[in-house]
């Protein structure tokens, strides 16, 4: 009985509890965190239930209020959504546990209930975007996620409010562009349901209006997911936000955007629209190639760890675009796997950046010296995340990159292949610069190490409630790598459209 209601529950539970948290917070602020943790744990169980049902029985259709589609709002969960839902649930739960102590330091106590309310609303929006099968419903949930993002980013350090304002202007242009796209599709077909649109659109493929609508979709979602020329809001907003917020938003929000773009290109529009009819894939490929190189070079220029990671995200979005632009089974498998892997990798790196900031109060890479003596566990987690982003087996980043490379070879897009390989090398420089600063000690300092101020080797002073989620995420990265074959065999191969 409850199993049938899971697609609704996963959105409704955090939505209602976010309001409850706010009210309970007025009475006792200490109760906020347990409510959030229990809610997200429940969501994780719902998500796993959904995934299990999808693997067993195939696609789930859930009609709200029993209004049959295409008139009512329908939630459709197939293998692609189910996988993204579970990853969002896992990462948001771990980040919420991590948040407990990090928030105490960065956010004034009087604002705790508001913080947790926005946290849950954010997760509601992300779950909703992923689960929905209705174009307009997706817009509304996209805006729920965006609003909570604007407000929660503004709680950060100096300059965060200005960054949040700029993000708001950009995000609204993106949302309006998406809404215009929905309008064009509605004029042409009279339908908002994705499955219905899939049936109706192929007859209209030669219409110019459809192309305009499609372009609006790409621009709108592109702004939200921060792909290259539209990414200018991203580095400021994610750098200046509180460290927990960056650890929640940076991995999840942009990846859910990538999910939406895959959904629009491959499900709502038939893949042949963007492969055969218009050179969409070529354009996306070039954008991705230029974007990755640009983001890698910008990342090299940063001395702030978080800002460097923000540019890495822009490059990672380019990776997912490359997988889409390859337009074959291998490439798209790589792109979908990369969405999941990147959630874990970015969560790992951003939680580490937050933990270093928690203990030392700095994010400047050049002040990380001797950090391996005072924060050995945190740095070990960082190395796992960094190696994964660079693409070293058995971390998960290697496997998705492997599929992306195979995809570009099969599509014979050599420029994209070169970009993938060169950017991996730049990643190696990028992360070994941090590792070098943190691990290796200068020679002269080493000689006089025994008598002058050299910190002794100690365990991290970061609380366990922050260390354990970080370790779990790192373990997740390795496990995702080891079991990536199983994930592809049981889930992703069904998520890739048949016609590819």
């Amino acid at each position, binding site marked *: 009985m409850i199993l049938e209601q899971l697609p609704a529950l996963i959105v409704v539970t955090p939505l209602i509890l976010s309001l409850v948290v706010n009210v309970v917070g007025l009475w006792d602020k200490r109760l906020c965190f347990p409510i959030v943790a229990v809610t997200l744990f429940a969501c994780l169980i719902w998500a796993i239930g959904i995934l299990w049902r999808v693997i067993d029985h195939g696609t789930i259709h859930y009609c709200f209020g029993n209004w049959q589609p295409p008139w009512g709002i329908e939630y459709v969960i197939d293998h692609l959504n189910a996988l993204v839902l579970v990853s969002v649930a896992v990462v948001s739960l771990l980040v919420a546990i991590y948040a407990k102590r990090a928030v105490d330091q960065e956010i004034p106590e009087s604002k705790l209930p508001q913080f947790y309310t926005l946290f849950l609303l954010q997760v509601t929006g992300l779950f909703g975007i992923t689960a929905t099968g209705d174009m*307009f419903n997706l*817009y*509304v949930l996209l*805006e729920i996620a965006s*609003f909570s993002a*604007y*407000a929660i980013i*503004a709680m950060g350090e*100096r*300059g965060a*409010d*200005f960054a*949040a*304002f700029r993000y*708001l*202007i950009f995000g*609204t*242009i993106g*949302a*309006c562009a998406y*809404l*215009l796209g929905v*309008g064009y599709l*509605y*004029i042409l077909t*009279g339908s908002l349901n994705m499955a219905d649109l899939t049936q109706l659109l192929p007859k209209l493929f030669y219409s110019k209006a459809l192309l305009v609508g499609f372009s609006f979709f790409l621009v709108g979602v592109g702004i939200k997911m921060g792909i290259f020329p539209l990414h200018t809001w991203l580095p400021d907003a994610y750098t200046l936000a509180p460290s927990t917020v960056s650890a929640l938003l940076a991995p999840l929000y942009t990846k859910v955007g990538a999910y939406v773009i895959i959904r629009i290109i491959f499900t709502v529009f038939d893949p042949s629209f963007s492969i055969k009819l218009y050179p969409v894939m070529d354009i996306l490929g070039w954008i991705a190639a230029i974007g990755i190189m640009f983001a890698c070079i910008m990342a090299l220029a940063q001395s702030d760890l978080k800002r460097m990671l923000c540019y890495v995200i822009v490059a990672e979005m380019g990776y997912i675009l490359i997988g889409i632009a390859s337009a074959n089974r291998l490439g798209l498998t790589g792109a979908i796997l990369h969405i999941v892997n990147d959630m874990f990798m970015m969560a790992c790196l951003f939680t580490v950046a937050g933990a270093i900031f928690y203990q030392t109060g700095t994010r400047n890479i050049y002040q990380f010296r001797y950090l391996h003596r005072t924060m050995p566990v945190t740095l070990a987690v960082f190395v796992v995340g960094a190696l994964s982003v660079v693409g070293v087996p058995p971390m998960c980043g290697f496997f998705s990159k492997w599929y992306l490379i195979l995809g570009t070879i099969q599509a014979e897009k050599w420029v994209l292949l070169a970009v993938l390989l060169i950017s991996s090398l730049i990643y190696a420089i990028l992360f070994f610069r941090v590792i070098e600063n943190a691990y290796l000690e200068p020679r002269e300092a080493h000689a006089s190490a025994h008598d002058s101020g050299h910190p002794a080797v100690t365990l991290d002073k970061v609380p366990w409630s922050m260390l354990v989620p970080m370790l779990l995420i790192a373990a997740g990265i390795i496990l995702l790598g080891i079991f990536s074959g199983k994930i592809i065999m049981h889930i992703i191969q069904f998520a890739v459209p048949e016609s590819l």
Partner: protein
Amino acid sequence: MLEVIVSKYNYWIFAILLIVGLYSMMAKNNLMKKLIGMNIFQWAVILFFISIGAKKGATVPIIAGAHGDGGHEIVVHATEYVNPLPHALMLTAIVVCIATIGIALALLVAIHRRYNTIEEDEIIEELKR
């Protein structure tokens, strides 16, 4: 040419408003003016949706006696009634619009409190210090 403009005047207004909004978001230095531009942009989209639902000489989308006897024999042509769905969608979009403005104004108040100005170049100057 004139006929094209006059007969589709609502779409022309939509396009002009969209460009006006986009221009002021990009070119204006004052954050409040940017915000007003953003609002114009949003309203242009809302106007677009309202336009596609509007129809001259059409009636309400309610069929009299459809549930009674002979209701099934009534043939309804799409040209005879106003499609209410775009308007209903825009109710939601207006709520979204208001929420955006609310958050943006709250952010502006916070920005003004912290930097004592809402001119973009002055804030960037202040942040560099």
